C-alpha cells in the first residue's frame, strides 16, 4: 500500500518531461517538420536552467531561460531545414550531436557539473491531498500543475483555433496552404521555435526540478523516447499524454521497487524504458491501425519553386 502511494506520488514527476517534450514535438511535427532534435534541445534546456539556477536560484526564471535557450538553438535547426532545405533527418541528427557536444563542453568548462541546486517546494491542493492512497498525486511542484494547463492550451490551440487549423494545413498539404495565402515557412518557423521552447522546458524540468544537478548527457535518451512516443501516439496530444504517463509510471517504479527492497539486477532495470519503447512501437505497428493520422507532409521540405 505504501509502495503504491509513493509510486503514484512520484509518477507525475517522471511523466512531466515526457509529456512536455511530446507536446513540443507534436506542435512541430503537425506543421510538417520532422523534429528528431528533441534529445539535444532537452540537454540545452537542462544546462541553461541549471546555469541560471546556480547563478540566481530562482526556479521560475531558470525554467524560462531553459525555454529561451532551446528556442534559440532551434533557430539553427530552422535555418537548416527551412532556409537551407537540408534533409530533416540529417538536420535533426546533426542538431542532437551538436547540442550533446556543446552542452557537455560548456558544462565542464563552466564548472556546472554535479553541483546540486535547490528545486521547487511541492504545493498541496488541499482537500484532494488529504485523500487516502491517491493523496500524494496532489502534492507536486507547481510545474506539474502548470503542465496540465500547458497541455490544454496546446490542445486548444491545435484543435480549436484558426491558427491551429492553419498550422495543421501547413503540415498536411503545404502547396494548398500556400495557395490559400498561408505563410508555410512562417508557420513552420513558429512551430519549430514554439515546440523547442516546450522541449527545452522538459529538459529544464529534469535538471532543475527532478535531478537538481547537471550531468553530461543527463537526459539519457528521454528525447528519443519522446520522439517514439509521438509516433505511437499517432500525433494526438491525448494519446501522447497517456504514453507519457505510462513511461513516467515505469520510470517511477524503478526507485520505488529498489526502496521496497526488491532485489533486481540493476542494469536490466535501467534497460526497461528503452525495451518498453521498442515493445510498444512493435505492438502498435502490429496492430495494423490506420497510419493516416501522420501529417501528410511530415519530413518534406516545402520548396515553392518545385511546386507542381
Amino acid at each position, binding site marked *: 500500500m505504501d509502495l503504491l502511494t509513493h509510486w503514484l506520488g512520484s509518477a507525475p514527476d517522471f511523466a512531466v518531461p515526457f509529456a512536455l517534450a511530446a507536446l513540443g514535438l507534436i506542435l512541430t511535427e503537425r506543421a510538417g517538420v520532422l523534429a528528431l532534435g528533441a534529445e539535444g534541445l532537452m540537454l540545452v534546456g537542462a544546462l541553461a536552467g541549471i546555469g541560471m539556477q546556480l547563478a540566481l536560484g530562482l526556479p521560475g526564471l531558470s525554467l524560462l531561460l531553459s525555454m529561451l535557450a532551446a528556442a534559440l538553438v532551434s533557430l539553427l535547426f530552422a535555418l537548416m531545414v527551412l532556409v537551407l532545405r537540408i534533409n530533416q533527418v540529417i538536420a535533426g541528427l546533426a542538431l542532437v550531436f551538436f547540442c550533446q557536444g556543446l552542452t557537455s563542453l560548456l558544462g565542464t568548462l563552466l564548472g556546472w557539473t554535479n553541483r546540486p541546486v535547490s528545486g521547487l517546494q511541492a504545493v498541496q491542493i488541499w482537500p484532494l491531498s488529504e485523500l487516502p492512497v491517491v493523496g500524494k498525486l496532489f502534492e507536486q511542484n507547481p510545474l506539474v500543475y502548470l503542465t496540465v494547463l500547458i497541455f490544454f492550451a496546446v490542445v486548444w490551440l491545435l484543435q480549436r483555433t484558426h491558427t491551429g487549423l492553419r498550422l495543421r494545413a501547413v503540415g498536411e498539404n503545404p502547396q494548398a496552404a500556400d495557395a490559400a495565402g498561408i505563410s508555410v515557412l512562417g508557420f513552420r518557423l513558429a512551430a519549430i521555435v514554439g515546440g523547442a521552447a516546450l522541449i527545452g522546458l522538459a529538459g529544464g524540468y529534469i535538471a532543475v526540478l527532478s535531478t537538481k544537478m547537471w550531468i553530461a548527457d543527463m537526459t539519457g535518451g528521454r528525447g528519443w523516447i519522446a520522439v517514439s512516443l509521438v509516433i505511437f501516439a499517432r500525433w494526438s496530444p491525448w494519446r501522447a499524454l497517456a504514453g507519457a504517463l505510462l513511461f513516467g509510471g515505469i520510470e517511477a517504479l524503478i526507485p520505488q521497487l529498489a526502496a521496497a527492497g526488491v532485489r533486481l*539486477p540493476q542494469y536490466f532495470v535501467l534497460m526497461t524504458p528503452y525495451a518498453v519503447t521498442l515493445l510498444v512501437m512493435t505492438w502498435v505497428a502490429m496492430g495494423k491501425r490506420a497510419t493516416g493520422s501522420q501529417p501528410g507532409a511530415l519530413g518534406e521540405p516545402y520548396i515553392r519553386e518545385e511546386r507542381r
Partner: protein
Amino acid sequence: MTETTLQQTAPPARQPLLARRYTLEIRQQLAWPWQALVIALALLVGLAICTAILIAAGVPASELLNEFIVQTLLDAQNLRAVLFQAAPMIMVGLAGCMAFRARFWNLGLEGQMIWGAIGATAISLFEVGPPVLRLPLMMAAAIVCGMLWTLAPILLKLRLKVNEIISTLMLNYIAANFLLHLVYGSWKDPRDNFPYSPPFKAFERLPDLFAGYNVAIVLALLVTGLTLWFVGISRAGLYLRFVDANPRVAGAVGVPVRKMIIGTVLLSGALAGVAGFVVTAGQEGRLTQSFYQGYGFSGILIAFLARNNPVAATVVALLIALLFVAGRSLQVFYQIPFAMVQLIQAILVICVASSDFFIRHRLRRIQAGDR
C-alpha cells in the same frame, strides 16, 4: 520589327542596387570542380568556427597548427596512434556507408560495436579454440554478434515499418546497459576493483606489424577493399544501386529487394562488430565500460561526408582519427573536455550539409522585363 530588335540588343537598364530583386532558382547541374569548391569553402567556414571555439576554450592560437598537424602527423609515436585509431574508425565509417546505401538509418553502430566486443571477449574468457585460432575466432564471434544485434531492427522495419532510427538507438541503450552489467558483474576482473574484464592474453591481442605499427590498420584497409569490391564490382553492388535508385522498379524487374536490404544492413552490423573487436583486442586489450563512445556518431558522419563511397570514407576516417588523437592531447595539455571533438564534428557536418544548398540553388537577378 525594328522596335523588337532594338529591344533585344539594348543593354538592360541599370537598376539601382537596392531596387534589384533576386529570385532563388534550382540549378540543374553544377560542374564538379565548382561543387568541390563549394564543399571546400563550407569546410573552411566550419574550420574557422571550430578554431574560434577552440581559442575561446583556452587553446592558444599559435598552438593549434602544432597540435593538429605537426604533433599528429610528423611525430612517429602519434602517427602510430592516429593509424591505430583510424582502424576502428574506418570500419564504423564503412558500416555507416553500407547501411545508408540500403537507405537504412543505422544509428545502432555503437550497440553493434558493443556486441562485437562482447562476442570477442566471450571467446577469450571461455578459451574457445586453440591459441592459433583464437584471434580469427574472436573476430568471427564479433561479426556474428554484430549481425545478430542488427537483425531485429531490419526485420521490424521491413515487416512492420517500425522506424529504424528509434529502434537502433533504443538497442544502443540496451546494449550499453548490458555491457555495464557484464563489466560490473560476472565478467569483472577479480584482481582489481575497476569495471573491466580480465586482460586478454598476448595471442588474443592484435599484433604489431613492425616498429609499433599495429596490424589493425591493415585489417581496416582489407575491409575497405572488400566493401569496394562489394559495392563497385560484385553483382550485389549493382543490385544495391538499383534498389537505392528505385526499389519498386528494381523489385518489378526481379531484383531481390528485401534480400539485398537485409544482406547489406547485416554487413553494416558485421562491420560495426569488427570495429568493436578491433578496439577491444587492439587498443584496450580487455572489455571496458565505455570503449565505444563517440564511434557511433563518427561512423554516421564519415558516411555522410564521404557520400557513402568506401574510398572517400577511408580518407575521412583517417582525418577523424587525427581529430580524436588531437582531442585527447588537448584534453591532457589544456583540460579541454573530449566533448570538443564531438562539437567540432557536428559543426563540420552542419557546414557541409548546408553547402548542398549552394550547389543545388542559385540566385538570379530578376530583370525588368521578367515576371
